[in-house]
C-alpha cells in the first residue's frame, strides 16, 4: 500500500508539472502577447500589438527570456517565494508565490486563498446532494425495474439533463430568489464565521447543482444496482432470511457503490476546478469565474494558478479514489 501511494504521488507530481508547463508554453508561443493587458492599463489603452511600449513590457515580464528559465523562476517562487518587479514597483511575493495578477496587481495566492473556500463550499454541498439524491433514485428505480416508477424516474432524469444547465440555474435564480423570496439570496459567508449563514446562503446553488448533477448518478446507480441485484450473492442473502432492506442496502448496494465511487471522485475534482456557469450566474467569486475572466485578458499568473488547482484536484481525487477503492473492494487491497 505504501509503495503504491508513493508511486501514485510521484506520477501525480509529474502530471502537475506537465500541466503547468503546457500553460506556460501556450502563453509564450500563443498568438497574443500576455503583456498586452498590463501595457494597456498603464498607458490608458494606447498600447497596441505593434507599439514599442509593448516590447518594453514583454521585456519586463520576462517574455523575452527563454521559457524554461521563466518556468524555473515561477517554480522557485512557488517553493521559496520571490520578488516580482513590474515597472517601477517591486512586489514581495512570499511562498507559495503564484505571481501577481496582471489585471489588478494583487497577489494571486492571496486571491486564491479567498476564492478557493467558495468553490470548495459549492463543490462539497453539491456533490453530497447529487450523490445522495442520485443513489437513492437509482436504487429505487433498480428495485422497481421495469415498472412505471422506474420508467418515470429514468425518463425524468433524461428530460432534466437535456435542458441546458445555465438555463436551469438562471431560471431558478430568477424565480426563486429575485421575483419571489422562496429561497434566501445567494451569497457566500465563510463557514467558520457563521455555519448557518454559510448553508442558507448557498442552499439554492447546492440544490440546483445537486439536482442537476444527480440525474447522471441516478442512471449510474440504477445500472450498477440492477447488475448487483441479480448477483448470486444477493440471492444467498435472501436465502438466509435477511429482510428486504438488509438485502438491498447491505449486500446489493454495498457492491453497487464501487463503480459509483470512481465516477464520484473525478466529478468532485472537476467541481473543485470551478463551476464556471454556477459562479457566473449566481455571482459567486470562486475559482471558475476567476479563471475564465483571466483567460480573456491573458492574465498568465491567474490562469496558471487555476489550472494548477485543477491539475492538483484531479490527481488528488484519483489517488483518493484508489485508496477508497481498496477499502470498498478487499480483492484490490492485498495485491
Amino acid at each position, binding site marked *: 500500500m505504501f509503495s503504491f501511494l508513493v508511486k501514485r504521488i510521484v506520477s501525480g507530481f509529474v502530471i502537475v508539472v506537465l500541466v503547468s508547463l503546457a500553460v506556460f508554453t501556450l502563453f509564450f508561443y500563443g498568438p497574443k502577447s500576455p503583456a498586452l493587458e498590463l501595457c494597456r492599463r498603464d498607458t490608458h489603452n494606447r498600447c497596441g500589438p505593434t507599439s514599442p511600449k509593448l516590447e518594453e513590457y514583454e521585456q519586463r515580464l520576462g517574455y523575452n527570456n527563454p521559457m524554461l528559465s521563466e518556468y524555473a523562476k515561477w517554480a522557485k517562487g512557488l517553493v521559496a517565494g520571490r520578488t516580482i518587479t513590474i515597472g517601477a514597483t517591486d512586489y514581495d511575493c512570499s511562498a507559495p508565490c503564484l505571481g501577481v495578477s496582471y489585471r489588478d496587481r494583487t497577489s494571486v495566492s492571496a486571491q486564491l486563498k479567498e476564492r478557493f473556500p467558495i468553490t470548495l463550499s459549492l463543490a462539497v454541498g453539491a456533490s453530497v446532494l447529487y450523490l445522495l439524491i442520485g443513489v437513492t433514485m437509482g436504487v429505487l428505480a433498480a428495485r422497481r425495474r421495469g415498472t412505471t416508477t422506474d420508467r418515470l424516474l429514468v425518463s425524468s432524469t433524461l428530460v432534466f439533463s437535456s435542458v441546458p444547465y445555465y438555463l436551469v440555474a438562471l431560471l431558478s435564480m430568477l424565480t426563486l430568489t429575485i421575483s419571489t423570496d422562496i429561497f434566501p439570496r445567494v451569497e457566500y459567508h465563510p463557514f467558520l464565521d457563521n455555519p448557518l449563514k454559510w448553508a442558507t446562503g448557498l442552499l439554492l446553488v447546492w440544490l440546483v447543482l445537486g439536482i442537476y448533477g444527480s440525474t447522471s448518478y441516478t442512471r449510474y446507480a440504477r445500472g450498477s444496482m440492477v447488475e448487483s441485484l441479480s448477483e*448470486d450473492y444477493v440471492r444467498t442473502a435472501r436465502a438466509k432470511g435477511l429482510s428486504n432492506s438488509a438485502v438491498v442496502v447491505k449486500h446489493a448496494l454495498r457492491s453497487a457503490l464501487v463503480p459509483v465511487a470512481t465516477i464520484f471522485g473525478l466529478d468532485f475534482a472537476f467541481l473543485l476546478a470551478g463551476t464556471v456557469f454556477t459562479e457566473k450566474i449566481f455571482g459567486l467569486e470562486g475559482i471558475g469565474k476567476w479563471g475564465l475572466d483571466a483567460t480573456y485578458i491573458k492574465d498568465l499568473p491567474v490562469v496558471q494558478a487555476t489550472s494548477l488547482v485543477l491539475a492538483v484536484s484531479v490527481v488528488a481525487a484519483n489517488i483518493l479514489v484508489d485508496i477508497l477503492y481498496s477499502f470498498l*473492494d478487499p480483492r484490490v487491497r492485498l495485491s
Partner: protein
Amino acid sequence: MTTLMSASGAAAGDGPLLAVDNLTVRFPTADGLVHAVTELSYTVELGKTLGIVGESGSGKSVSSMAVLGLHDSRTARIAGSIRIAGEEVVGADQGTLRRIRGNVAAMIFQDALAALHPFKRIGKQLSEAYLVHHPQATKREARRRAIQMLDRVGIPQPERRVDDFSHQFSGGMRQRAMIAMGLINDPSLLIADEPTTALDVTVQAQILDLLQDLQREFNSGVVLITHDLGVVAEVADDVLVMYGGRGVEYGPCREILTHPEMPYTWGLLSSVPDVHADPNARLIPITGNPPSLLDPPAGCLFHPRCAHVHKVSGDLCRTVLPELVPGPRGSGHLKRCHLPDPESIYESEVLPEIAPDLAEVADVGREG
C-alpha cells in the same frame, strides 16, 4: 456437539418434512410463457436424501428455489403447494418466508465464489445468517458460532480464517463455508443445488462425505440437485428424474439405478463415465436437445429424442402425455412412459451397450 443438535427438527411432527404437490412454475416472457416446472410432486422425510437429476434446464433449480420462495413474485407464476414441516410456502407472506429461509430450510448454492459476497468477510456472512434468526444473540456469540461451524465443516484454523474474504479461500473451502452458513441455524431441510459442480473430483468426494456426515449428525432432510448420477448413487435415498420441467421417474435410489424404466433415465445412465468399467463399454450421449419450455412438444416430452418410440403401438408417444404412475415393479417406483415392457428392453438393448459385464450377469441369472 449437543449444542449443534437440531431444535427445529421437532417441528415436523406428522407428515413429511417437505411435501411438494403439483408444483407449477411459469415465467411470462416477451416470447411467451416459459413452463419451467409443471405439476411436480415429491416428498422428503427427515433424515433422508432426495436426489433430483436432470439435464440443464430441466427445472431442478427452479423447483427448489420455489421451495424457499426465492422467485420474484412479479416475474414468476407459481401454483400448487409446497409444505415445509406442515407450513405452506406458496403464497406465503414475506415474514413467513423470511422465518423459514435459512432457519427451517437452508440452501447451498452451486458456485460458492459467486454465491458468497466478495466484499464481506466469511465470518461476517456466517454470523449474519445466525443473527437474523437469533435476534437475542450478541455479535460475539454469533462470531463464536461462526468459528464453531467453520471448524465443524473442516476449515483449518477457523479462528484465523473467519476474518478472510471469500477470494482468499480455495474452491473446496468456499463450498465448505457455504455449507457452514447453510447449517448455522440447524435447519431441518437442506437444499443443495449442485454443490459439487464447480469443484475438482477429489474435493467433490470430500464435500459429499461432509454433507452425509452432517446430515446424520443433524438428522435433516436433504434435497440434492445434481446432473451427476454417480453422486446420486452415492448419497441419495430416493431419486427424482426430471425432464422438461416434469418428473419422469421417481422412486428409491437403488431401485431406479438398477431397474430404470424410462428411456430418458437410460440415456442418463448411458452417459455416465465409469473408471472401473470395461474400456470397450461405450458412453452413449442422448441425441438431440432438451425440449423448448416455451412450446413443449405434444405427447411425451421425451419422444423427439427417444429411440424406442416405435415399440409403442400407434401414435401414443406423439399425442398422449403419459402419467407418472407405478410401473410393473410396484407402487414405489413411478415412471412417465408408454413402453409396455421397459425392463426387458433395458436388459436386452441398453445394458449390453453400457455395461457388457453386468448384462452377462443378468443373462446368467435368468438362465439359472
